[in-house]
Structure formats: structure tokens, C-alpha cells
């Protein structure tokens, strides 16, 4: 749905809603999915992101997002210095994902706490973004809802258990999506909600023995 502030906004650091604001949002979502600022990250840029990114501040904006700067934060201009000060290690490389891939695609190869995660997303235009893949699981995260991402050992009853906890904490679900790599392996759940998912609710979900990890991806203004 189009909102008035998609038209009269976003308020952002220039020069491009797709290549700067959108790039920053992808960095912010990757950071949230990783569970915090990565220790190190290799970012692969495809298509227009690779070809015209430098002149659009795309690299800076992505690095800025990874250290938690919002699209309207003027520190994005000095994002490299800010990131060095924050202790982030990063490197960029160009990648050709073929004609089918969205021209503004970025792949984040994140390392944090001995864990590695691959997050793929694209900037769709006007600052809107979509993360389409987490560690090979297909997802559709746009940052327009309060989102919970859960990796669980795939066994019967997990979906019902999560839904029950959320209902108990009065979280109104907008969407819920589950994908599995195979039976009795892992399942990735993405849950989009109108309201922020409270710490106690996330805590209750984290206490399930079959849960591998739970990450909160906040709504991006």
C-alpha cells in the first residue's frame, strides 16, 4: 500500500533513494538479522549497485546501515570512519548474478560470534527494499513491519508454539511464513507484526529447546 510519506519522503541523505537510502536500509536489516553489528562482513554488489554505486554513496550507505545509521543520519557521509571507530571489518566485491537478479542486489556474508550468515537483498526503488534470502531460505522482508526471524529445528508443533506465545503477548500478526530445507532439519520462520514484539515474548520463544536463534528486525521509519 502506498503511504503519503512514500510520496512526501523519505527524508534522507542523498543522492539516490534506491542507491543510498535503500542501500542503507539493506545494511540495517542485515545487521538486525545477524543479531547485531557484524565482526566482519563481505558485501557482494551486483548490477547497477556495482556499476554506479560509488557515485551514489551506495558503499558508504551500506556500511552505515551495518553500524546502525539510519537513512537520514548525516554521519552516512563519514560512514567509513564511523565504521572503523566502531570496529567493523568490511570488504566489497563485485559479483555477476545474471540477468534474472534485481539490478540493485547486495549479498552480505556476515560473521558474528563465530556464526556465519548469508543475507541477500535488493533495493527496489524509492527507498523500498526486500531481503529475499537468509542462508538459502527464501524470505520477503521489507522492513515495513516489526519482524521476527526464527531458525528452528524442524519438528511438529513449532509453528503452533510460536503462535501461542505471540497471541499470549497480544501481538497482532500481519504475515507468517515458514520455509524448510528438508524434513527434520531446519525451518526458518519470518513473522511480521503491526506492533513491536516485546522482549518477554522473544524471551519466551528463545526458551524453546528446538529454537536455534531468534532475531528482531525493527520496523524502519
Amino acid at each position: 500500500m502506498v503511504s503519503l510519506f512514500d510520496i512526501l519522503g523519505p527524508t534522507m541523505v542523498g543522492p539516490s533513494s534506491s542507491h543510498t537510502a535503500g542501500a542503507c536500509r539493506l545494511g540495517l536489516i542485515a545487521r538486525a538479522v545477524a543479531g547485531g553489528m557484524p565482526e566482519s562482513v563481505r558485501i557482494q554488489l551486483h548490477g547497477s549497485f556495482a556499476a554506479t554505486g560509488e557515485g551514489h554513496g551506495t558503499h558508504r550507505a551500506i556500511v552505515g546501515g551495518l553500524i546502525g545509521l539510519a537513512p537520514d543520519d548525516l554521519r552516512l557521509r563519514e560512514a567509513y570512519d564511523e565504521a572503523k571507530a566502531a570496529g567493523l571489518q568490511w570488504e566489497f566485491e563485485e559479483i555477476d548474478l545474471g540477468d534474472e537478479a534485481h539490478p540493485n542486489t547486495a549479498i552480505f556474508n556476515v560473521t558474528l560470534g563465530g556464526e556465519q550468515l548469508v543475507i541477500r537483498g535488493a533495493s527496489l526503488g524509492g527507498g523500498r527494499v526486500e531481503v529475499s534470502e537468509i542462508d538459502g531460505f527464501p524470505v520477503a522482508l521489507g522492513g515495513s513491519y516489526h519482524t521476527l526471524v526464527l531458525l528452528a529445528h524442524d519438528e511438529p508443533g513449532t509453528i503452533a508454539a510460536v503462535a501461542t506465545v505471540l497471541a499470549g503477548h497480544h501481538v497482532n500478526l500481519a504475515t507468517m511464513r515458514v520455509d524448510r530445507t528438508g524434513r527434520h532439519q531446519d525451518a526458518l520462520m519470518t513473522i511480521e507484526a503491526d506492533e513491536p514484539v516485546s522482549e518477554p515474548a522473544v524471551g519466551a520463544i528463545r526458551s524453546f529447546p528446538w529454537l536455534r536463534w531468534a532475531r528482531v528486525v525493527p520496523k524502519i521509519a
Partner: protein
Amino acid sequence: MHKSIESLIRDAEQSGRPLPQVVLDRESAEMGIAPEKIRARIGQTLGVMRGAIAEGLEGKVRSASGLTGGRSKRLWDDGPRILGPRVTTILARAISTLEVNAAMGLIVAAPTAGAAGVLPAILISVDEFAEGGMGEDRLIDAMLVAGGVGGVIAQRASLAGAEGGCQAETGTAAAMGAAAVTWLHGGTHEQISTSIALCLQGMLGLICDPIGGLVEIPCIYRNASAAMQAIAAAEMALANLDFPVSADEVIDVMGEVGRRMPSAYRETAMGGLAATPSAQRLVQIRPTKRPSGASS
């Protein structure tokens, strides 16, 4: 948001509410946000717009590529010669915001960053031209009218240069501005609708061919010319000049032209001005420094 100018105006006429109120009520209902909060946020948005105009006109901003910066101040200091000072003011302000944008400054993408100069230049200037000013409340109302028009175009056509060329970006911004200014000057619903049609018909077919793929040249100048297109359309509509094709139909034509536009003219820097020898020479000076980070 409304999906046609016709339904937007019909809503206002059937309910007896002013046009800005119709846009505000719809947004409030769809997004679940209180009307006064929406108005307050628009007020903040206007503040950012004013800030960007002022920053650019100081003449100090420069983009990383070196392609833009400082021109708005030169125009401001050196004009006017042919038309009155108001024209120079609007042109300089449109360029100013885009210069700030290119230099990674803070702007409002209305509806996109590449077209961010048009609406502020028009609204802030028209406010200033009115004796005693228009007042913040009426400016917020005008922004609501502009937003309502932009919402229709977003749903019927496109706002992205990569999809519909520059007509989708500066064309939309100009149509939003034309409607807002016509409303601010007491235009009837018919005049507002006509101002949109008159403005957009003059922007049809405009390609997106930025040099080096950067939101700089010709973008800063296209924002200036789009702002003038908007003012011209408002003047003509307010004088009851008519247009035989409805606003919604012109918007649909813009969408159709965008879909048929070759990709070379849709923000790929593969055609148009971007593909000229002069442009190619300029692009070679583009810096490519991209330091990797290591914590130290």
C-alpha cells in the same frame, strides 16, 4: 491513497470536505495514524526542505564526483535578466536542493531524491511571494494536495526513472507542485485537475539519461525546468484555460510512454546525454576510491 484524481475530487465534493482534508483522512484511516501526527510530520518535512534550500544557496556544497555544486548561488547572485526575480528565485531553489542531494546532504525525496528540488522550490517560494506569507497550516494543506496527486501517479503510472524515465520523477513532482499551487491560489477542483493535466502533458516522454549514472547532470537543471512547468500549468489553469484530456488519462499516458521507453533512456546511462562523447569524457574523472575497513 486514492487511485484516481477523479475519485479524490469526487470524495471532496460528495463529503463537502476540502481536498487536503480528504487526503489526510484517507491516510489516517489507512495507516492508523492520528491526523495531527501526520500534519506535524509534514511540518517537519517542510523544515528539512527549507534547510536543504538554504544549504545549497550558500554555494559551498560539492558532490564527490565534482560534477555539481555552487551553481544555484551563481544563478541567485547573477540573475534575473529576462523574466522577473521570482523566476530566478524558483530556478535557483530547485537547483539548490539537488546540489545538496548530490553532496550527500539531507533532503526530502518528494517523490524521489532525483526530483527532490521541484516541490520545495515551488512551495517555499510561493509562500514567500504571498504578502504576509501563506501560513504554515496552508502550506501543510498544500503538501497534502501534492501528496494526494503523487499517490495517484504512483499507483497508475510510476515514480521511478528506471521504470518510466525522468517524466516519472520530475514530471510527477511538477504535477504535484502544479496542483498544490493551484489549490493555494484558490483554484476550483476543475482548475486543480486541469493544472495536473496541463503540467504532465508538457513533461511526457522526458527520458532519464544521467551522466555517469549519477543524480547530478542533467538532473539539477531538469528540476529547475520542471518547477517552471508546474508554475506555468498553474497559471494557465487558474486563468480557466482548458485541456480536453482528463488528468487521469494524461497520467495513464505517462505510464504507457514509460513502459514503451527503451531501457537506454531509463536511468541506465546507456543512452541520451549520458552516451555523448562530452559525457563520457566527464565520467572518466569520476573517483573510484572505495577503502575497505580494518579495525585498528
